[in-house]
């Protein structure tokens, strides 16, 4: 580093150039992302309705309304159930498929492509296809379960089946991404560890998995669980087009509630409060993930 006056001038020039380079993105970031997030927090403390000439500050009023709102609790419970189904199944399947693909050498690229295809497909178009697959009379799902002698169901109209049916679509779309992330995690495991384990007598595939693959895959697993949970929390498209929260609020989820309050009933203040609840869950999940990974890093 040059010192003295010339050095300071150069450092100054570098700083000026840097600020010019970051200016457009920083401005956009505040205008489109961070600023609006601050605005959501402010809005949540008001009873403002979109288009109304004035509003009152009501502090935590929206949150106390929420506490007494049965539909809100139902939506929260539904969201948690949806995440609770989607995450373990799609992570488990993603891991199983990644292991199966890595277990041999033939057809790797082919199988990877097959399982990855749903990740890139437009979910909305595919949701309409699933609607047809769940069709009560001609749907493929009822025909398939008919083969093993089960009675046909009205999947999307039955209050006890609608949410799991939507979760099935969510799983179908999430498996491929989880598989890809696990494949990357598996590739990062040093081969020497398997050889060392073999020397120690870990000969069976199961022992190798238990002693090497599973512990080494820990960080990838935490990460995959976290992003699948965060994405599942954002479930909206399938609910909006297939069930609109019904039947009997059985598929009403947090984001769908927020959309309805904010953009159908135009209760901006209340919808902002719902948004904060949604954000709180996401942030908690991320912090939990960071904490788990840090803890691992300390011992592992």
């Amino acid at each position, binding site marked *: 580093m040059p010192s003295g006056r010339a050095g300071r001038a150069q450092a100054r020039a*570098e700083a000026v150039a840097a600020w010019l380079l970051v200016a457009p*993105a920083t401005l956009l970031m505040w205008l489109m992302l961070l600023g609006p*997030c601050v605005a959501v927090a402010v809005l949540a403390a008001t009873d403002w309705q979109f288009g109304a000439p004035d509003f009152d500050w009501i502090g935590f009023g929206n949150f106390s309304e929420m506490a007494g709102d049965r539909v809100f609790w139902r939506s929260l419970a539904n969201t948690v159930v949806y995440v609770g189904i989607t995450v373990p199944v799609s992570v488990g399947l993603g891991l199983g498929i990644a292991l*199966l693909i890595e277990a041999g050498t033939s057809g790797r690229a082919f199988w990877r492509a097959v399982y990855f295809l*749903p990740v890139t497909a437009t979910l909305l178009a595919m949701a309409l296809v699933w609607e047809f*697959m769940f069709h009560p009379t001609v749907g*493929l799902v009822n025909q398939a379960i008919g083969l093993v002698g089960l009675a046909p169901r009205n999947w999307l109209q039955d209050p006890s089946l609608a949410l799991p049916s939507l979760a099935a679509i969510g799983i179908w779309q999430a498996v491929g*991404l989880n598989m890809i992330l696990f494949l990357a995690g598996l590739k990062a495991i040093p081969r020497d560890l398997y050889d060392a384990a073999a020397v120690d007598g870990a000969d069976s595939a199961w022992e190798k998995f238990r002693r090497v693959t599973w512990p080494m895959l820990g960080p990838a697993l935490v990460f995959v669980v976290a992003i699948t949970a965060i994405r599942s929390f954002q479930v909206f498209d399938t609910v909006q087009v297939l069930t609109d929260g019904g039947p009997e609020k059985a598929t009403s989820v947090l*984001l769908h509630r927020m959309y309805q309050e904010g953009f159908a009933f135009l209760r901006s203040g209340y919808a902002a409060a719902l948004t904060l609840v949604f954000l709180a869950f*996401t942030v908690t999940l991320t912090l939990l993930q960071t904490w788990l990974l840090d803890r691992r890093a300390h011992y592992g």
Partner: protein
Amino acid sequence: MGEVRRVEAPPLPVPPPQGGRGPYGTRRHRVPSPALGRERDRVRAVPHGLLPAIARHALLALGGVVMLAPFVLMVSVSLKPAHEIFAPGFALLPREWHAVQNYSDAFTKVPLARFILNGFIVTFAIFAAQALAALPMAYALAKLRFRGRATLFAFVILGLLIPPQVPAIPLYIGMWQLGLIDTYAGIILPSTISVFGIFLMRQFFRTVPDDLIHAARLDGLSELAIVWRIMLPTAMPALAAFAVLSFVWNWNEFFWPLIVVQSEHLMTPPLGIAFFDNAEAGTNYGPLMAGATAITIPLVLAFLLAQRRFVEGFTMTGIK
């Protein structure tokens, strides 16, 4: 080191052999293998026995059928007349081909071509804006010294935490005040910044050697020129991966367009197909599936043509 130490511990009682069951039934590493890449693949290509290999493919095929079934069904239904779609039993191919009618219905009952065009307009505009804003910022964050750099980077990380639906209500109010509801600008503007893009490119730029930049400065290049003439060419692989992600995310985006678009002629593909579904009230599946096929094809084709890039791109979402 608790987990690793267990590897070196004396052998534990081994459970009874798995009899080829389970995903790992086939995995053997008799040959000491060099660690990485193709070398490893070749070593593992030593035959393991036919039965486990068949079991592996059979299991993968079983799941694969479920993965592909919706795509196959979509195309199949898009070729059939209504009476065959609602006939009991399922046939892959139609007895009476109705493809021309279904696809022409899909493109005439709703402006499907316009939806697809809108999809391209919106995704290209968004990616151009994201790249133009993100590349200089990523370079400054990675390579320049200035006060506030750490704070700025902390804001980027904070931005990564925020789901895209959170700013929707204030953005809607803002767009409404500016008269941008139901315009292309209204659809595009909120997505013009990608903190993920900034983060990704910053991580990549940190790996570019400083000497390259010093040399460029000695040649008299301005910092902005360095971004476009030195950094951009080296960043092409990372930028391509980001382009793929940006394109997939924005082509498929439904939440924001649903909020901001009212007119049919501005609808993006997902919004357009949902609108078509509403108009047909779930009865006219042939044309609907033809429409669904039409809006899914661009992404599926892009994926099949550039599989590596897609996989790389989506794997990068894992580096956060």
